[in-house]
C-alpha cells in the first residue's frame, strides 16, 4: 500500500469513478428497487452506485488535500491509440462483409503503423502472412463461421437494391473521394 493518493491524476481518477457511479445511478433510476426483504432489479445497482460515488469522491477529495508537483499523466501516443482502436473497430465492422482474409490483411497493416518503427518492407509481409495463417488456422482448422472472402467483395453484391447496401456504397465512394 505504498504509493497512494497523489494528484492531479487521482483527482481526475476519483472524479471519473464518481461519475461512473453517478451514471449507473441515473441510468438505473427507473429500475424497481423493491424492498430489502424482496429485492427488485434496482436494489443492488443502487447500493453499488452509491458506494461508487462515495469511493470516487473520497479518492478525489483526499488527492485535493495534498497537492503535489505537476501533471503526471505522461504523453499519449495519439497516432497509436487512434490506429489501434481504429483497427479494432474496422475489424468488427467489416469482417462479416469483407471476409477474414482481406480484413486481417488490412487491420494488421494499419495497426503496424501505430509503431514508430513500422516499415513497409516488414508491414506488408507481416499482414499478408498473418492473414494467411489466421485464415488457415481459424477457418480451415477451427471452422469459425466467417467467410474467407466476404459478400461485399463479390461482383453482384453492389448492384443489389438494398438501401443499407447503397448507403454503404455511397459512404465508401465518399471516403475515396475525400482520400483523393
Amino acid at each position, binding site marked *: 500500500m505504498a504509493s497512494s493518493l497523489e494528484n492531479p491524476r487521482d483527482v481526475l481518477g476519483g472524479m471519473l469513478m464518481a461519475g461512473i457511479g453517478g451514471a449507473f445511478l441515473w441510468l438505473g433510476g427507473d429500475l424497481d428497487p423493491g424492498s430489502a426483504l424482496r429485492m427488485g432489479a434496482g436494489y443492488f445497482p443502487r447500493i453499488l452506485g452509491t458506494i461508487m460515488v462515495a469511493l470516487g469522491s473520497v479518492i478525489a477529495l483526499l488527492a485535493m488535500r495534498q497537492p503535489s508537483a505537476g501533471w503526471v499523466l505522461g504523453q499519449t501516443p495519439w497516432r497509436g491509440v487512434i490506429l489501434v482502436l481504429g483497427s479494432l473497430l474496422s475489424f468488427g465492422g467489416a469482417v462479416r462483409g469483407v471476409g477474414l482474409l*482481406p480484413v486481417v490483411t*488490412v487491420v494488421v497493416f494499419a495497426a503496424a503503423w501505430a509503431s514508430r518503427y513500422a516499415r513497409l518492407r516488414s508491414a506488408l509481409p507481416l499482414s499478408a502472412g498473418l492473414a494467411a495463417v489466421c485464415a488457415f488456422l481459424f477457418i480451415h482448422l477451427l471452422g469459425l463461421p466467417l467467410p474467407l472472402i466476404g459478400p461485399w467483395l463479390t461482383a453482384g453484391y453492389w448492384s443489389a437494391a438494398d438501401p443499407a447496401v447503397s448507403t454503404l456504397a455511397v459512404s465508401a465512394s465518399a471516403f475515396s473521394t475525400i*482520400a483523393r
Partner: protein
Amino acid sequence: MPHNQNPGQNHGQNLGVEPPATGTARAAHGSWFPWLRTLTAATLLAVVPAIAPVLPASAAYPDKVVTIVVPFAPGGGTDTVTRILAEQMSKDLGQPVIVDNRPGAGTIIGTNIVANSAPDGYMLLMASFAHAVNPFLNAKLPFDTEKAFAPVGLVAKSYNIAVVNTSSQFKTLSDLIAYAKAHPGELNFGSFGNGTSAHLSAELFNHLAGTRIVHVPYKGAAPAVTDLLAGQVQVVFSSVASVSGHIGSGSLRPLAVTSAQRSKAFPDLPTVAESGVPGYVSDAWYGVYAPAGTPAAVIDRLNASLNKAIQSDAFKKLETVEGLVITPGTPQDFAAYVHGEAARWRDVVKSQNIKLN
C-alpha cells in the same frame, strides 16, 4: 440469384457499423494512406474475378454452405439436436450444413439475424419453445414472429418431467398438489430462467391445479437441478436431458410427464393430466424456419431433407436420450402446431401475469 445476396449481413449493416478499414484508418495519418489504398485495391482486384464467375441463378439449390443459426450457446439441448440434424441434412443436401451459435437475449439475437437474412434458403433458424412465447413476454421484439419467417418443418416435440428429490415426502403428483394446496406459498419450484419451458410449465401447473408454488429462477438447467438435489427447491419441471441421469441413478424421483400422452422413454410415468390436473399439456419443441419470402421449391427441398434426417438412426438415438418425440410433417403442419402452442401460452402468460420487462 444466390451470388448477389449476403446471408446474415443485413443485420450488421442495419446497426450502422463502421465502413471497412480504409475509412477509419485513414483518419489517423495521411502519409501512409496511399499504400493502404493501393493494397486494398490490389486485394479487390485479386479477389473479385475469382468470385464473380460463381453463377448462375438457375443452379440447383443448394450450391453452397447452408447455415443453421442456433440462438443458444454451444452445448445445450437445442445445440446438440441441431448439430446432429445438420450432420444428417448435409448428407442429403450434398453441401456442408454448419451450425452458427448466436446466443443471447432469450433467443432474440439469433432469431433477429435470420429474420433479416436473404430469403434464399442458405440461412435457417432452429427455433424452440421461446420462439412462440417471446411475443407475449417481450413488449418489443425487433422482428414480427408471425410475418418474418417461413416454416420449414418440425424437427421433434419434447416434454418436461416434474421431478422431486428422492428424499422428498412426495411420492406422486397428487401428494404434491395436496400439500401445496394446504400450504400455499411454502414450496418452491426451480426454473431454468424467466420465460423458459421449465418456468412456464410450472406456472401452467399452478394455474390449472390451483396451487401457489413460488418461482425461483436459475441461470440454466445445471444450477437449478443442483439446488433440487441439495433440497433448496422442492420441484422442477425439467427437460428430460437435464435429469435423466439423476432419475437413472435414483437421486431424483420423476412424478409425471407434461405431454398429453405417456412417453416412450418413461412408459410407467403418468402424465400431469392423469395425476389430477385435467387439461394440462406442456410441450417443448424444435423446428426449423427460413426467412419469409424463401421460394417454395427451396422450402420443399429443405422439408424433404429435414424429414429424412430426423428419421435417421443417429437421430432416433435422441428419442430416449433427450426425450424427443420425432414428428415428420409438412411446413403447414409445423405452422399449425406452433400457432396452437402460441395461442395456448398467450392465455397462460396473461392469466398468471408473467412479464419480463
